[in-house]
């Protein structure tokens, strides 16, 4: 079944998967671009990036779970999942604190969507990966360290 899914996607790619997806309304580039928060995304440090997304001093929360590898297999594509158990979660942002531009993405959740996102981020070096959740006008945060190592020399 999974092999079938993979093959379907491969053939779709052959036919221009992105165009197909856009035509089908799965991706709305204009909508995404309209929400572009230039100041926050171009901020060079965590403090400014947090300010830029209106989260200057978020409260630490144990209801946010970050799933990411302890050591990244490939710093160019680090899988990160964030789950927010906070009622009324309306957006989730991800920051890689030591990246040149720490803010990786913000995800707006509407219409009672589940507080869950899954994506891949790029990391230049070992760093805290931070999630910032907006719920009911308040901001909450949690972080997990992801190590980026040179590799080799194992056992």
């Amino acid at each position, binding site marked *: 079944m999974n092999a079938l899914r993979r093959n379907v996607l491969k053939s779709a790619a052959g036919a221009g998967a992105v165009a197909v997806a856009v035509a089908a309304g799965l991706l709305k580039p204009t909508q995404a671009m309209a929400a572009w928060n230039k100041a926050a995304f171009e901020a060079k440090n965590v403090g400014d990036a947090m300010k830029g997304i209106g989260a200057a001093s978020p409260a630490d929360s144990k209801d946010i779970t970050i799933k990411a590898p302890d050591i990244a297999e490939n710093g160019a594509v680090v899988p990160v999942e964030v789950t927010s158990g906070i009622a009324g979660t309306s957006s989730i942002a991800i920051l890689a604190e030591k990246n040149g531009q720490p803010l990786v993405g913000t995800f707006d959740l509407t219409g009672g969507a589940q507080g869950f996102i899954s994506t891949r981020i790029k990391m230049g070096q070992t760093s805290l990966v931070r999630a910032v959740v907006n719920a009911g006008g308040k901001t909450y945060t949690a972080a997990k360290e992801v*190590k980026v190592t040179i*590799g080799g020399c194992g056992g």
Partner: protein
Amino acid sequence: MHMNRREFLQLLAVAAASGMALDSKSALAGNAPANFYDVPRHGNVSFMHFTDCHAQLLPVWFREPNVNLGVGDAVGKVPHLVGQHLLKAYGIKPGSAEAHAFTYLDFTEAARVYGKVGGFAHLKTLVDKIRAQRPGALLLDGGDTWQGSATSLWTNAQDMVDACIQLGVNVMTPHWESTFGAERVMEIVNKDFKKANIDFVAQNIITNDFGDQVFKPYTMKEMGGVKVAIVGQAFPYTPIANPRHMVPDWSFGIRDDNMQKWVNDARAKGAKVVIVLSHNGMDVDLKMASRVTGIDAIFGGHTHDGVPQPVKVKNAKGITLVTNAGSNGKFLGVMDFDVRGGKVQSYKYRLLPVFSNLLPADAAMDAYIKKVRAPYESKLSETLAVTDDFLYRRGNFNGTWDQLLVDAMMDVKGADAAFSPGFRWGTTLLPGDPITMERLMDQTAITYPQTTLTNMSGEMIKTIMEDVADNLFNADPYYQQGGDMVRVGGIEYTIAPNAKIGSRITSMSIKGKPVVANKTYKVAGWAPVAEGAQGEPIWDVVASYLRDKKVIKGLKLNEPKIVGVGTKNPGISGYQGSVS
């Protein structure tokens, strides 16, 4: 209690003179310690476990480390006990066969009395003996089985695959196996293993695209009417410690949550005994056992710790036993469970050293090994040099074999310094032994053997050393990769294992002069993990050096000054350098 060296040597001499040496026939006939392998069965469910044999089909020497430091919560705890500290912890008599198997103490003298260890023909005899007393017992292979010898490299792992089928392996999980490439692994699993009914299990290998399981996460078996599940845990950091491009579509990792899910699944389907066959390394296994519930035992490997008895780890719902079964074919773990009323009531565990002089070779396996080696014999047996020195690899910081490799690289390549990976495999040679091509390949047989010569700034050298030190000494086991410290030729340094990354390595110097951050140095190395690296294979570089030298004598072991571990740390003994 501790016998001094002179007493020990006298004891060995007396033993040899009175015909008690282990290679004598009388030992086999019933005199001590011929009852070594009389292992009465306990209970009704049994497993045998070997791991990290590193493709050694024939008996070898293998010296255990004299430096195996624990950090964080692991300081001074199993498996971070060496020499007399290990003997004391397990009540093993100094000078005994077990003491020789489990420690480095008086290695060369004891090796001559007790003989070589391992070898698949001898292991086969032991496996059959144990199995005869325990019908239905399962043989579990913890991985690092296909890599580590010339013949496994030259046969593309086929010699080991066929040997394991003949040995009677039932279940396996991988690490170095992946360095033959994903396609080759799949070919073996889907053809050879499928035909032989061997389960290849790994709950923590998933596809990079959709996160689908690549292999069966676990297999369910039945023994005497009791359902048992064996969950596979491959080496979590394969794409980091080894070349990622060899398994480009697979993601690994520890994946506790996935482990819990599959353990629960196995229990729900009626498993009364749940085993994890793991290549995590012992410190990672100990942490995993404290977090995941419902596992009766983790049979571990990777860190090559020969641990005589399991560590009992408490977690939220019970106790999990954690073992580690050494390396290079030296040991066979035998775990017996008494399972009644739907659960494990008690256990008995032994980690049996495989003394090849005490176990007659199985004729069929012996014939197979001879046949598979035949086309390569002349190449394998070429004597490159003779060693006057004792050559070994294991230990956190350096071994004489690695010193020889870095000396050869610096000499042949004209480098200021050299790096050699902190591998834990590789056999041992006694003073006076010939260094054959086969023994050189024991240290170097990998699928990415290229040597490199790179201009590096002092800063880059320090960054690399700090990075590797953190992979070994991070206080959190989940950040440890299970290798030893990179072997460093030409650079003297001080290390503080308990410090944080960036401040462990200090006082670096080359030829008595401090290493300068922005100065450029020529650094030789091998085993590059990046794709497309070019360079002469390491064995050719070292072979030419050895042929030229003819005799290896007076190697100067470059060991760092160690600070902050204490002079009474049971993870270090007989260290030649400075320790505080």
